[in-house]
């Protein structure tokens, strides 16, 4: 057995905020072997990023290592003088960060930023460094690297920036690469590309990879070994397969069952009640005890010790005697369809939203960003239509157009049989209660200076719901109860609530005016998995109870799978495939839908479909490609695809816009898709 490359022993990190010391990392032990991918898994605030920064001794000014040892090849890094530490950084251990948009210096060229490592650590001349940079950029899959050398980060897309970050990290030929949420800020198709790249590079170079992530799917796809962190401690460690298939710690178990893709669409998701405890010291007993489904009396008083070896173990004395998870109650209607109907509540026909691009001396219009370009869809009452697509595809713009928050350029929308897009002034204002919206970011969607009661009554007062102020306050209590918050919450301010609770308030605000349709714009993408489950359950319950219809805007297909009855897949302002959720997600017809689905990293390896690698990135909606918008990225594209936008065809009980879904025997069916051979037209 070889010595581990990196050993971390009893590492503790303090953050000094406002005169108080928070122990955000409290005694973490692990080791990383050579050539291994080691995942540090945990939800936000568990201390995983601080652990990574502590390894590089790059903690922010307010942070400090409070104890423990970090050994690289047996040498204690914490004892190294800063000057010698610098020789290691970027050389033997390199790091990439979550936000590629912010992590590159905006005013330095790509070549200069990578070259800095080469000249600094490897002593290359400027010329040699440039040549080596080109090699590195090629290695991370950047086309035309010579031209990129003199470009600035803003000229690259998010995925490309992350590739540049990786190239920069590789420049010093590190033995250990620390990747802190490397794909969290990226779209799912780009995430797949970057993960593939990391996997390939790691295998080629025999690097060790410390992967820090909250995404169980990413762990399942990438890691050899996993350590699960909770509230500053490692609570479970083991091989990837063992932790994900046979989790032992209650937290890991609950985390896995909270995933919609694991649970399946018709069941309630398991949730973890409460939230991560504050870390300002004095945590008696097990840190997970307040949220644990199997909690026993001694858990609250006795801090559990580590049970097992450094490579495999669990921080729970009861881990092996746990009963099966208490069965979560099933959702009321088997599929929530009981309340639904097929009468369209909202119908959009040929809707377009264009934003003009102005230029020249007189600021005349020279073009338009066609954010939404001729979309037709209908939402039945009491059902959920999901709008799926990468960021920038126009799904949020469409959602806001439906709520009448921006103006249509063309097409029309009708609501409940009457006109909707044509309403103006008072006619629109008085009917605004019918369609409401829940936003993505629970922090930006509540006014920090208003109390919960004021937030909830604002819409009621504006739209005349409720007879008077006291009636509205009574409604506030009912609403809070509906979304599972205590009545006492109404006199509190948003900052006193956690992200999940804020999202509940946002949902209550929308519900307050008794809408028939709620546009949910990425309602869970800013939330942790365990909290996401609570919100998804809530949305489902409310639909069953109130018969409200949802337009669910999401890039997360497992959320869509769990909640939606119908799915519309958007690409560059247009819908490319639309139909019943089960069918579309099980047997996708459009190549884009197929690629999207296969790009999701699945926890359950058996569900991982054959990866359809999607090259390139979403083109600009200001200048969409000729013909089928998807053709530059499509493996099946031929001459027809480059010349004409495909008309909608009915295939397999859904509408698809693809030339390759062909008519056979009187009915359209999915063509047997075969990737185009090189040189074939």
């Amino acid at each position, binding site marked *: 057995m070889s010595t581990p490359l990196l050993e971390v022993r009893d590492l503790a990190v303090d953050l000094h905020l406002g005169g108080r010391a928070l122990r955000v990392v409290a005694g973490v032990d692990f080791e990383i072997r050579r050539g291994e991918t080691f995942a540090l898994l945990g939800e936000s605030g568990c201390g995983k990023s601080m652990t990574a920064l502590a390894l590089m001794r790059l903690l922010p000014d307010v942070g400090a290592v409070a104890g423990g040892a970090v050994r690289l090849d047996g040498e204690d890094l914490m004892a190294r003088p800063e000057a010698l530490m610098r020789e290691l950084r970027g050389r033997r251990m390199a790091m990439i960060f979550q936000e590629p948009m912010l992590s590159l210096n905006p005013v330095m060229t790509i070549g200069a930023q990578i070259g800095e490592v080469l000249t600094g650590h490897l002593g290359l001349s400027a010329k040699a460094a440039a040549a080596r940079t080109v090699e590195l950029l090629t290695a991370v899959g950047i086309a035309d690297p010579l031209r990129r050398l003199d470009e600035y980060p803003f000229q690259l897309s998010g995925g490309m920036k992350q590739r540049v970050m990786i190239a920069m990290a590789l420049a010093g030929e590190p033995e250990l690469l620390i990747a802190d949420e490397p794909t969290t800020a990226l779209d799912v198709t780009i995430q797949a590309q970057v993960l593939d790249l990391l996997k390939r590079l790691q295998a080629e170079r025999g690097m060790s990879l410390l992967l820090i992530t909250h995404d169980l799917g990413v762990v399942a796809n990438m890691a050899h070994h996993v350590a699960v962190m909770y509230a500053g401690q490692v609570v479970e460690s083991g091989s990837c397969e063992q932790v994900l298939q046979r989790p032992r710690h209650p937290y890991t178990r609950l985390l896995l069952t909270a995933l919609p893709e694991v649970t399946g669409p018709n069941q309630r998701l398991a949730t973890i009640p409460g939230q991560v405890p504050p870390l300002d010291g004095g945590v008696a007993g097990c840190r997970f005890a307040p949220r644990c489904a199997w909690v026993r009396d001694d858990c609250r008083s006795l801090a559990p010790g580590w049970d097992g070896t450094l490579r495999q173990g669990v921080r729970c004395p009861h881990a092996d005697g746990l009963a099966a998870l208490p069965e979560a109650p099933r959702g009321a209607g088997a599929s929530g369809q009981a309340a639904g109907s097929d009468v369209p509540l909202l119908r959009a026909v040929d809707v377009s939203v264009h934003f003009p691009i102005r230029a020249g001396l007189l600021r005349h219009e020279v073009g338009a960003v066609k954010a939404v370009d001729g979309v037709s869809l209908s939402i039945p009452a009491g059902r959920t239509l999901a709008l799926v697509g990468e960021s920038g595809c126009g799904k949020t713009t469409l959602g806001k157009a439906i709520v009448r928050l921006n103006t249509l350029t063309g097409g029309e929308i009708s609501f409940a049989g009457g006109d909707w897009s044509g309403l103006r002034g008072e006619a629109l204002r008085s009917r605004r209660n019918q369609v409401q919206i829940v936003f993505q970011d629970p922090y930006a969607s509540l006014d920090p200076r208003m109390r919960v009661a004021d937030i909830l009554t604002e819409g009621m007062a504006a739209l005349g719901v409720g007879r008077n102020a006291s009636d509205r306050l009574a409604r506030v209590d009912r609403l809070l109860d509906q979304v599972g918050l205590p009545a006492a919450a109404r006199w509190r301010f948003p900052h006193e609530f956690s992200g999940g609770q804020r999202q509940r308030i946002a949902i209550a605000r929308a519900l307050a*005016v008794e809408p028939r349709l709620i546009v949910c714009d990425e309602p869970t993408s800013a939330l942790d998995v365990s909290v996401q489950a609570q919100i998804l359950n809530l949305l489902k319950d409310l639909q069953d109870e109130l018969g409200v219809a949802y337009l669910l805007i999401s890039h997360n297909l497992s959320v869509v799978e769990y909640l939606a009855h119908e799915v519309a897949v958007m690409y560059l302002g247009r819908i490319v495939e639309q139909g019943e959720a089960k069918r579309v997600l099980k047997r996708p017809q459009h190549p884009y839908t197929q690629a999207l689905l296969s790009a999701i990293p699945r926890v359950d390896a058996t569900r991982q479909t054959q990866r359809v690698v999607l090259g390139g990135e979403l083109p600009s909606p200001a200048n969409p490609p000729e013909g089928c918008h998807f053709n530059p990225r499509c493996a099946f594209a031929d001459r027809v695809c480059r010349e004409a936008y495909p008309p909608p065809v009915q295939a397999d009980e859904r509408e698809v816009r693809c030339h390759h879904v062909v008519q056979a025997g009187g009915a359209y069916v999915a063509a047997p898709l075969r990737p185009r051979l090189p040189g074939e037209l």
Partner: protein
Amino acid sequence: MIDLTTIEPALLWTDVLLIGLVLALVGLVWHIRRHAHLAAPWRKVALSRAGMVSASVLAVFAGIGLLDSLHYRPALPDAPALAAGPGAAGKALRHSVELRHSVELRSALDALLDPLPTQVETTYSAPMATRAFNKTALEGAAPGGTARDYPRLKFGGAHLADEGAAKVRDIGERVVRGALSGLACAVGALALLALLCGPRAAIGRFRGWLFGNGEDATHWAAWTLLGIATLAGALAWLAGGYHVFGTDKVGQDVLYQILKSIRTALVIGTLTTLVTLPIGVVLGIAAGYFRGWIDDVIQYLYTTLNSIPGVLLIAASVLMTQVYMDTHPESFETVTARADFRLLFLCLILGITSWTGLARLLRGETLKLRELEYVQAAQAFGVSSWSILGRHILPNVMHIVLIAMVMDFSGLVLAEAVLSYVGVGVDPSMISFGTMINSARLEMAREPMVWWALAAAFVFMFALVLAANLFADAVRDALDPRTRVRGVA
């Protein structure tokens, strides 16, 4: 002490506005104290030592300025004599008819400082001097010839028979006595206040004020106030017998001028914001929220105003007022009222030239806020634009407004000095730091130099502006979300 029944309150425009502003501030503080979420950032100001020290220094300055803003007309000395004529009937009429009031205005500060304002020497005298700065021909000194010597002052050290050792002893005594009595008064006042806040925990509260409660830095404020009281006590005792900071060319006591300057600085520093705030806030958030042609018009307005060199615009406006005042002398009863009109106008014009910065800041912030999701949620409810501005935008830019207000104060105080020096500031008859420096400037060239007026103006102005700057820093640190700790995952 003056007989309060014989005076006639005569508030100037700036008095009314200043007092109104102070009342509004008191109301605001009361409102903030009742709302925990509003009070929370201000508690952080209380955590800052520099913030508490500077706040108490500012409070003392503000107190002096306010006292100087309570103007009244004293009864003329002969008036009671006239009124005390034939018996009881005359007595009844005394307040209504026969009591004549002086044309000149006095302020509560003047009354408090009495007789300092009236102790005017003939010309320059150095601080603590007993004799004048210049030799003059003394009457009947040497027989036959005219002897030239430094004459004794009329008031400074006039009680001393011996100007040598006795003077030193007298000064020492006054300093010690004054300091001790000042300190004693302040401690007594604090104790009384603690008792008034509720006798039950008075001792604990008193101890907390003086030695800290372990939470914030409010005891620094108490210590600062005690220090100032000690200093003020010593000054007061000295001023009883001497011109502590000397006298100026016309023999006016410099300490008195300094104390009068404070009000001018305060008026300029605060009333200007009364003009700046409404214009800047309304135009700034309207431009940011409505965009389109409203934004274009407002941007045109502030670019145009900004493009005019500030001093020139102020100069042109002040000249214009001066011409107006010269051509309409009948509108002003007294010299003081005239000077007050010019001061008010200066505030107005300073405000008009300085709202642009605030408006631009608020426009930018509003552009960001209007895209925020809670604003869109309100729009989705059909809430009217003005309600959104009042309910969502304004409260969320209020911290910027407050920070701008405190940050502007020191700049305005400094600007007053420069403008008055250039000649387009306050009326030359109004005592201000600027006019003091302006008249003291030529004295620097004298040999030997007359340095005291300048030095005194420097010390007090520096103290005021430094306190304002430090307080502004503390407020900004507490209110500005950007200055809070970042880089924490």
